[in-house]
């Protein structure tokens, strides 16, 4: 992490010129969604100058930590590598001119303060636009810059709730679930990156203000949840995968998904070395439906004999589209991810590095 800011452009994760080489980004973000947006911009070659308050981004104190437990935490480090960092108290009126100066030399400003905060500090859209008419300002917030929920507070679990994902996530006899890591914020970071580049493509003499709502990023991606009501009046609930072919099922050392959609089940039984699954009554879709409980119980017993990766790679080699629950620890050794060069080393503390995902885009 650089200390007080020089001006040399950052390079993307590969060290080569990325598509955004030469794009200058002023990063006024904290926590996850904003920093991930600017992290992806940096990955793709943009030069990111990041401003944190004197106390630093509060995310620095979030776990997990590197061995020894020192801050910053690994989430902070993952989101903020490859950026230049300066410390500035944006709420101090003296900082205003400095920010406007930096904005004059930037193509993009990304921020995720609560709506209205930048205006209160005199560095909102109007002031930034006056300082640099071609600037793109991307504002990411929980609910957007307008509307009755604008000032509501939220974390990921609240976004998953109001965005409609939680209601269809979990068992039908228990409370809804949220993801085990901040997926909603991460995803909004990706959507915000796309919106920023779309706005950059459309800059003429004027830039614009992009308003990204995390709740809407979730609510836009629920497949048939909304159409079930708008087409049929039905309100769907969670638990649909329980006990089906797509259910996560325990195996000898973890979990797999025995979803051999459209497969010849006598072959699948052969692969599994389980003649009991090749029984006549299980060979057709109708048969498996009629004897659903018995089929499921037989499959559960068979899978106990299998180890995760032997089942997954073996069945896939036979052509069955099955799945496996693979942990990050297991994936670090994945031949697939290794061969594709998916990991890169990030410095987490002086002299200590950790492999981290490079990002999903390969151009």
């Amino acid at each position, binding site marked *: 992490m650089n200390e007080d800011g020089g001006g040399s452009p950052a390079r993307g994760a590969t060290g080569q010129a990325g598509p955004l080489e030469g794009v200058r980004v002023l990063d006024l973000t904290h926590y996850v969604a904003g920093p991930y947006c600017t992290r992806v911009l940096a990955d793709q070659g943009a030069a990111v100058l990041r401003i944190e308050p004197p106390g630093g981004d509060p995310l620095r104190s979030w776990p997990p930590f590197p061995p020894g437990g020192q801050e910053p935490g690994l989430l902070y480090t993952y989101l903020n590598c490859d950026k230049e960092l300066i410390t500035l108290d944006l709420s101090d009126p003296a900082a205003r001119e400095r920010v406007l100066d930096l904005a004059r030399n930037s193509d993009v400003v990304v921020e995720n303060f609560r709506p209205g905060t930048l205006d209160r500090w005199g560095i909102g859209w109007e002031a930034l636009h006056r300082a640099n008419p071609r600037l793109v300002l991307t504002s990411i917030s929980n609910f957007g810059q307008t509307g009755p929920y604008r000032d509501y507070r939220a974390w990921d679990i609240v976004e998953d709730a109001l965005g409609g994902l939680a209601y269809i996530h979990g068992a039908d006899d228990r409370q809804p679930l949220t993801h085990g890591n901040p997926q909603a914020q991460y995803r909004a970071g990706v959507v915000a990156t796309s919106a920023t580049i779309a706005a950059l493509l459309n800059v003429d003499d004027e830039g614009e203000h992009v308003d990204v709502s995390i709740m809407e990023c979730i609510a836009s991606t629920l497949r048939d949840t909304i159409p079930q009501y708008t087409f049929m*009046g039905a309100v769907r609930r969670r638990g649909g995968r329980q006990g089906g072919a797509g259910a996560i099922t325990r195996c000898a050392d973890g979990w797999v998904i025995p979803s051999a959609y459209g497969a010849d089940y006598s072959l699948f039984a052969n692969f599994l070395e389980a003649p009991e699954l090749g029984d006549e009554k299980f060979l057709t879709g109708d048969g498996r439906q009629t004897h659903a409980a018995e089929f499921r119980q037989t499959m559960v017993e068979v899978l106990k004999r299998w180890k995760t990766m032997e089942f997954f790679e073996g069945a896939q080699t036979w052509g069955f589209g099955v799945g496996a629950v693979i942990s990050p620890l297991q994936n670090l050794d994945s031949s697939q991810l290794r061969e594709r060069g998916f990991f890169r080393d990030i410095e987490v503390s002086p002299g200590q590095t*950790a492999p981290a995902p490079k990002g999903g885009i390969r151009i």
Partner: protein
Amino acid sequence: MKKAPLAGIRVIEHGQLLAVPFAARMLADLGAEVIKIEAAIRLDSHRQTTYPDNDPGAHFWDRGGTYHNENRGKLGITLDLRNPIAIEVCKDLVRISDVVVENFTTRVMQQFGLDYAELVKIKPDIIMMSSTGYGHTGPWKDFKAVGPTTESASGVAVTTGYDGLDPVMADIPYTDYVAADQNVLGVLLALYRRTRTGRGSDVDISQVEAQASLAGELYMDAALNGTSHAPHGNRHPMMAPHDFFPCAGEDRWCAIAVSSDEEWRRLQEAMGNPAWAADARFAALAGRQANLAELDAKLAEWTRAFEAFELMTLLQANGVAAGVAQTGRDLVFNEHLAARGFFDWVTPPASTEIPEKPYSGTGWHFSESEHGLRRGAPLLGEHNEYVLRNILGYSAEKYATIVASGALGGAPEEFNRPHPVALEVLQRQGRVVEIDPDYLEHLRRFKETHPPNGSSK
């Protein structure tokens, strides 16, 4: 206002299910002209689900609600790619297009002679975005994938589920959407590069990698600390309480997340300062974490008396992060989303007999750029003649020859008529919590009282 960001950009979509069709819809939202190519003889399964009133109707393939939601704003043509004339039509389209997006398994485009290596010969600056489960290279490149299996392979699913039990994924192919978001990003990055260098690109997106990149801290934690991740319920290391709490009514829940001791004091005030909450064990985060089961149970006793939205409003008024676990129905009638113009109200062609309905929008709003054309999803082959005659400029004779050759594919009539499971059965099975027989009237009345503003801001 200015033109839409992708106005003048033409995108050819060879997409099925979600990851690419939804990405192409987002590109259409941004103003691109998207031409969706489908095979009439191999119907997308999203065309075959969620029918109006659960009734497939005569042309069932044009009545699927999920299809309509994910494919708005596009033109649609049918081609049978096994026919060499259809391949020539594809290539002619590529010659006048900017972007090709596809999510076939890895070898399909190559078999059709439509892979990147072939397309650059006829359109040197073409951008091709391929979205697959595991990527176009590596030992797993030919593995079959659907959203749930890539989510489970990404390292994210193992962290999600009830404490101490098996992982649980959401009832949608979540990672398809994660991939769709990055498919859009990949296309935009390639377009940005093309404006500066004039060069096209081959964009290879792996769903597993797209999802794993949204979990960097888990990978670093595993590498440095040897952590073996497991489901941990709704617990959060920096917040307590942090869970869904029951409310009045059937299966109603409100999320509550307390991220500081100050917020805990505000929650106590919202509850009217009950004696149990003043317990010193709960005053600081560490104590609330250590006694979480007891705290959650006490809190749930209090929340149960409230209607979910009433609870959310009360807690937010007290500065506590809270949100109702909204159903599909709640979302459609949500005042906040309506005020922001989140839903697009469109009417598909009359032959579908689908009236005007709201469809979910996207998470971005532009202050100056126009939204792409707002129109319903294309019927199967709806724009065959328009695209071939008006966009490709084929003569009437040439078009007739192509039709006669069978290159536009057979008729979906060959398919068996689907027989959807009755809603009452789904309700008995617990898949549906409620059926609103007056949903059309409720939609109509909501639109009257909340006129859509027709713009994205």
